[in-house]
């Protein structure tokens, strides 16, 4: 989980604009359906939650299941009315969290 997520947020926008945000985090998203070389099932290990907030307020939350492809990618939108910071949190099955943030200037 040490790998860094990639997030794209425009650096500036006009007040009231709806902007597009893209996120991708490297993760193998082990489904729990596969078997290892020893014939034993490989335990499930996925990112099960993605949360995005802007200035502390929720923008989008996603609950993920093993049917999401490896290196989960999402694009979504946000309406910005003030300058501030987007915070991104990914949570995995073992409770591990990866966070990152992006600032945006709104004029």
């Amino acid at each position, binding site marked *: 989980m040490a790998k860094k997520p990639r997030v794209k947020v425009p650096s500036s926008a006009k007040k009231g604009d709806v902007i597009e945000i893209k996120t991708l985090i490297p993760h193998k998203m082990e*489904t729990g*359906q596969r078997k290892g070389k020893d014939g034993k099932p490989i335990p499930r290990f996925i990112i099960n939650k993605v949360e995005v907030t802007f200035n502390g307020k929720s923008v*989008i939350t*996603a609950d993920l*299941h093993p*049917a*999401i*492809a490896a290196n989960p990618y*999402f694009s979504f939108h946000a309406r910005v009315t003030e300058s501030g910071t987007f915070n991104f949190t990914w949570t995995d099955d073992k409770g591990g969290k990866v966070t990152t943030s992006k600032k945006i200037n709104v004029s």
Partner: protein
Amino acid sequence: MSKVIETSELKKDVSVDRRGALRLLGLGAVAATAGTLAPMRASATPESAGLLMDKLSGSKSYKSGKVTLKTPAIAENGATVPVSVSVDSPMTDANYVKSIHLAADQNPRPEVASFHFTPASGKAKVSTRLRLSKSQNIIAVAVMNDGSVYKASNLVKVTIGGCGG
């Protein structure tokens, strides 16, 4: 001696005595466990995907329209299938999309993902990439803040499955 026992055993087989009843019970037990195990081993079905959607959306009546589900007609690689869902909504405090649920009806499990929006989302649209084990229907259900539920589904043909292997 042994012949006598054999004939008596045959007779017992015909009539349902204690032994026969036990044997029937045993068969019943085997059938019952097979019945409960089978759905766990087998993949999702359109029924289980439908039940999941009823549970997630808290509704059983779906309207059509509003939901646009974009999927490839043929996915060459089931390990990563691009999918995009958008819902026609102004996304204001009075009228917005609460959540979008995605399901697949032939994967090992029907659940795919649930997205929860707020008016700050600006636009009820999300794109991601899925795993599909074989050709199947992708179902998208949108729950509005007033409780109405809209549904759309698309068939995706998969040439190489993305689960297992």
